[in-house]
C-alpha cells in the first residue's frame, strides 16, 4: 500500500548556545490505513517526533511529506489548514475546551474548517458521539466529564473532519487499565471502520502489541521497527 506519510532525515536540535540533539536522521514511512505504535522511554524523543509529524514543531533539518507533499516550505496558515483537514490529534491531557459542551468540542474542527456548522456535520458529530458512547452526556460541559469520557470526546473530535492521519500522544496515559483497554478497542474499531492511519505513542507494552507495527525510539534513533 502507498506511503501516506514519509520522514526524510529528520534532525531536531534544541537550544541556541547549548545544543541538545533530540532526533538523529530519522527516516520513516507510514502506510495508509495502518495502526502504528511508537514506544520509548521518556526523553527518548518520541513526543518530539510526534509533534514534528503533526506539523506543530519544525525539524532542524529534513522534511516531512504528507500525501507526497513536503510541509517544510508551507506557511503557517497552510500548515494550520493541513492540520485541520488531514490530521486528528488525541493528546494525553485531552485538551478539550472547557467553555464548550461535548457536542461543541467535537464540532470545533469542523467549525474551524468551514467557519460554520451545517446539518451534515452536526449529524456526523452525533454519530461519532454515539460511536464513543457519550450520547447521554453530549450537552455536558467538557469539565463535567470523567477522564475516560473526556478522552472519548477527544477521540470523537479527532475524527470529525475525517482526517487521513490520527496522532495520539499517550492517549490513555492517565486513565485506569480498564478504561485504557476499552479506548484502544475503540481506536482499533475506528481504524478498521473509517480506515484512518493511526500513529500512537504509548509506554504500555500490552497496548503496543495490539498494533500492526511497533517502533521503538531510543536516544533519538529508531532502535526497533517490527511489522506484524
Amino acid at each position, binding site marked *: 500500500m502507498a506511503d501516506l506519510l514519509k520522514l526524510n532525515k529528520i534532525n531536531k536540535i534544541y537550544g541556541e548556545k547549548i545544543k541538545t540533539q533530540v532526533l538523529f536522521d530519522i527516516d520513516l514511512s507510514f502506510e495508509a490505513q495502518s495502526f502504528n505504535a511508537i514506544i520509548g522511554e521518556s526523553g527518548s524523543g518520541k*513526543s518530539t517526533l510526534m*509533534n514534528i509529524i*503533526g506539523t*506543530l*514543531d519544525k525539524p532542524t533539518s529534513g522534511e516531512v511529506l504528507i500525501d507526497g507533499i513536503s510541509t517544510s516550505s508551507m506557511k*503557517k*496558515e497552510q500548515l*494550520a*489548514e*493541513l*492540520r*485541520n*483537514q488531514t490530521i486528528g*490529534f488525541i*493528546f*494525553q*491531557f485531552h*485538551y*478539550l*475546551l*472547557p*467553555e*464548550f459542551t461535548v457536542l461543541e468540542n467535537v464540532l*470545533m*474542527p469542523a*467549525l*474551524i*474548517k468551514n*467557519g*460554520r456548522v451545517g446539518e451534515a456535520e452536526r449529524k456526523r458529530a452525533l454519530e461519532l458521539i454515539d460511536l464513543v458512547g457519550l450520547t447521554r452526556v453530549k450537552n455536558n460541559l467538557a469539565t463535567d466529564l470523567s477522564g475516560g469520557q473526556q478522552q472519548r470526546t477527544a477521540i470523537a*473530535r479527532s475524527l470529525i473532519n475525517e482526517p487521513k492521519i490520527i496522532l495520539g*500522544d499517550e492517549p490513555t496515559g492517565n486513565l485506569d487499565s480498564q478504561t485504557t483497554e476499552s479506548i484502544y478497542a475503540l481506536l482499533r474499531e475506528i481504524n478498521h471502520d473509517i480506515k484512518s492511519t493511526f500513529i500512537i505513542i504509548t509506554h504500555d507494552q500490552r497496548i503496543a502489541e495490539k498494533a500492526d507495527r511497533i517502533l521503538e525510539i531510543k536516544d533519538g534513533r529508531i532502535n526497533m521497527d517490527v511489522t506484524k
Partner: protein
Amino acid sequence: MNQLSFRIAWRFLKSSKGQTLLILLGITIGVSVQIFIGSLIDGLQKSLVDNTIGRSSHITVEPLGREADFERNEDLIVKLQDDGRAAKIAESYSNSGFMVHDDDTWPLVMRGFEIEDADMIYRFSESLTEGALPQNQYEVMIGATLADEALLDIGDTFLAINPEGNSQEFKISGIFDLQVASINQTWAIMQIEDAQVLFSAEDRVSAIEIQIEDVFAADTIAAEWKTLIGEELQITNWKDQNASLLSGLSGQSASSYMIQVFVLLAVLLGISSVLAISVVQKSRQLGILKAMGIKDRAASWIFLAQGLILGIIGSILGTGLGLLLNWSFSIFVKNPDGTPLVPFYFDPVFVVLSMVIAIIAATLAAFIPARKSSKLNPIEVIKNG
C-alpha cells in the same frame, strides 16, 4: 471576521462571568461619565449662550462713527437674506428722547422696529406681562419698571419728545419685562415708521440687527459681510463684544475634553490589561485551537471580537446611565426659582460619537492581546501539558 471567532469570543466572555462583568462595569462607568460630563458642560454652555445672546442681535450693521442713522438700503437687506446664513433680520430706528406724563419727564430710548421681524429676535411677545404688541400707528410698549414709576397702564397715553422739541402722543398697548433693569426702565418699543416720523428721519435706519443659526460663526460671517455693506457702515458681532464669556466657555470646553480623554484612556487601559490577562488564562485553549488548525487571524479575532462585544454592550449601558444621570441632575439640582441649574440637554451627535469612540477604543484595546494570541505557538501549550 467569521462566526467561529465570534462564537468562541462570546463563550469565553460568558464562561468568565466575573471578569466580564468587571470589564463591562468599567466601560459602562467610563462611558456614562463621559456622556454625563460632556452633556452637562454642553447644556451649561448652551443655556449660558442662550441667556446671553439668545435674545439679542448676533451681528449688527451700524453707521460709522457718531452718525445716528443711515439711508435704508433695500439691496443690502436682499443680499443678506440671499446669503442664507442669517436666520432673522430686523431693521430698527432708535434714538433718545423723553417721555412726559403728568408733568414729569423720563428719559426714553425709542426703539422703532418692524415689530414682527424684531419679535423673532427679542421675543417681545414672550416678555409681555400685560397687553399686546404695538400694531397700530402711535402705539407703544414700555418696560415694567417705567410703567410702575410713571403709574402708566394699558390704554394710557403719554407724550414722546425728541431733543429738537418735536412731540407725538403715544398710546400704551403693552408692558414688557425683558429681565434687564435698564431696558425695563428706558425702552419704548414702537413701529419703525412712528420712530422715523418722530425724529424726521423718513427712510433712514439706525441698525440692521441679525441673528444667525451658527452663533459661534458670528465673527467669520461678520468679516465676510464687511465687503457687502460698503465703506460707510460698520459691522459688529457678539463674539467681539463678549470676549470674556467666550474665553470662559473655551476654558470649560477644554477641561471637559481633558476629563473625557482621561476617562477614555483609563477605560482603554482597563480593557487592555484585563484582556491581556485573559490571553494568558486562555493560552491553553488557544493552543488547542491552533493545534486543531485555527488560523492566526481567526485567533486574533477572538480577542478583537471580545473587545468589540464589550465595547458595544458597555457603551449602550454607559449611554443609558449617563443620560439618566443628566436627567436626574436636571430634575434634582435646581435654581432657587425652581428652574433646573443645568437644563437636560441631549445632543444625539455627541452621544453617538461617544459610543462609536468607546466601541473603537475597546476594540483597539483588544489589539495588543490579539497580537499576543496570534504569536502564541501551540507547541508551548502541548509540551507543557
